[in-house]
């Protein structure tokens, strides 16, 4: 089976996942990452996705995906039912990102969380010079119709996990598809990926 190349943040997560892991991909879209994990890592992978058309597309690929809403439906999963939970580009769309993090680490001992960094210099400049909510490559939708209701920055996220006593086991920062350093991440990362674990 051939795959189109994974989005850089997904490729990074896929590379980190151990062989044969049990994984829940939250906000799995049409199952691109799930299929890659199944085929390259023999992972036992399940998905949760809010959009019916995406769920159907994933089902057609033979993936086990359930239509649902991360804010409400994560509560249905038993404790420790997975080795990893993955939340890619979904945190900023949730009603209560802090509670979602609790759920991730209840369902699995470890999780990957990726999100667009709202403190990227382009965003800062757009706000500073334009005085308007930025529309960028990773945040392409105007403020009134965006699903991103809780914009988050790298610093915000670091602070939240520290306050919640969540361990950060890894962090990757991407500018386009290139890595950037942790020190420069706040300004330069378009995208951040964290591997977190119960504290």
């Amino acid at each position, binding site marked *: 089976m051939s795959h189109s190349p994974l989005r850089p943040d997904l490729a990074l997560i896929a590379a980190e996942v151990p062989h044969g892991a049990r994984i829940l991909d939250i906000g799995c879209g049409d199952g691109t990452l799930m299929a890659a994990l199944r085929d390259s890592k023999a992972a036992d992978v399940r998905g949760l996705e809010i959009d019916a058309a995406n769920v*159907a597309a994933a089902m057609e690929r*033979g993936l086990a995906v359930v239509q*649902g809403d991360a804010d409400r439906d994560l509560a249905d*999963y*038993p404790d420790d*039912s997975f080795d990893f939970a993955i939340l890619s580009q979904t945190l900023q769309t949730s009603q209560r990102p802090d509670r979602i993090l609790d759920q991730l680490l209840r369902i699995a001992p470890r999780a990957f969380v990726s999100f667009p960094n709202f403190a990227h210099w382009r965003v800062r400049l757009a706000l500073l010079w334009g005085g308007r909510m930025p529309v960028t490559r990773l945040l392409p939708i105007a403020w009134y119709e965006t699903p991103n209701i809780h914009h988050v920055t790298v610093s915000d996220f670091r602070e939240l996990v520290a306050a919640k006593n969540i361990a950060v086991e890894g962090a990757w920062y991407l500018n386009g598809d290139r890595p950037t350093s942790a020190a420069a991440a706040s300004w330069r990362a378009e995208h951040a990926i964290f591997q977190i674990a119960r504290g």
Partner: protein
Amino acid sequence: MATRTRDVQHNSLSLERPLTLDSGAVLERPVIAFERYGPLNEARDNVILICHALTMDQYVASTHPVTGKPGWWSKVVRPGGVVDTDRYHVICANVIGSCLGSSGPASLDPATGSAFGMNFPVVTIGDMVRAQAILLDELGIGQLHAVIGGSMGGMQALCWAAHYPDRVDRALIIASAARHSAQNIAFHEVGRQAIMADPDWQGGDYYASGRVPVKGLSVARMAAHITYLSEAGLTAKFGRQLQDRETKTFGFDADFQVESYLRHQGISFVDRFDANSYLYITRAMDYFDLAEPHGGRLAEAFRDSPVRFGLVSFDSDWLYPTSESRRIVQALHAACAQASFVELSSPFGHDAFLLDSPEMWRLMAGFIEAGR
């Protein structure tokens, strides 16, 4: 009229093994009527069992012998179709308790030589599935590539997965539930009471009398039919339009189109269905609760299940609403089973699963083909 179903020949098998029912009663040599389509391959691993809904039958893809109409899922089950009969061997069995060739209240009781009527033992969804399993045994079929069903057929598919997890590779459950809700039972009770209130019902002993409870069965069907539709669908189709007239009659004729539609549904139903069978099958559905033997914990019914589950609901279905499918999905997750679920959008209510639904068909095809 309603006895027409008894005069038709159906393909059937008289099972060699007795069937012990959940009630404790035993059917010595139950007859199961069934239809088969497509080639059975040498490995016998290309079998798909389709379970039918309450008032459907085994004629899923072939002409109905009484009505002359095409099979109820003939657009789905056909050569090159969503369920491709060029490649799969499809079996659809008439449930036990029904009236199209399987043992039911209209069958002859060997003890008396006349129809069982209400002496036929009460059956359950589990009994229906057990009878199907024996049928497959006798046909030499051990494994099912897939079991598929909508509504009551979905209940059977769930039962198959719960009771014979090692015989089922995947189960597709459409617009169904793991238990009958109080509302479901309530509507069924209305139908049963309509039948039993008909003087022609005669305590269920009407087969030899030449009179059948046409009115009662027809009312039961009308009431049930409303539950298969949605308000939006009914409004779109009929609104308050009058039937073949300009003004209201100020009487009780079928002034409104929706009235004459329902009357037609009721009347045409009595030609192809036996009133007692309607009582027995609705009862079987009412008794259905997969969680009950597990202290109410549905997940226990699917613990360590190797079956792949797919569930589909329709957003306008208020008879088997999405919440019931979600309950099953939650239980499957809790049991760590492989489950997919999607709610499709349709204005047609519960009936949506029988109508043209390219979205559902794509899903079904993907689910059946995945990993083949």
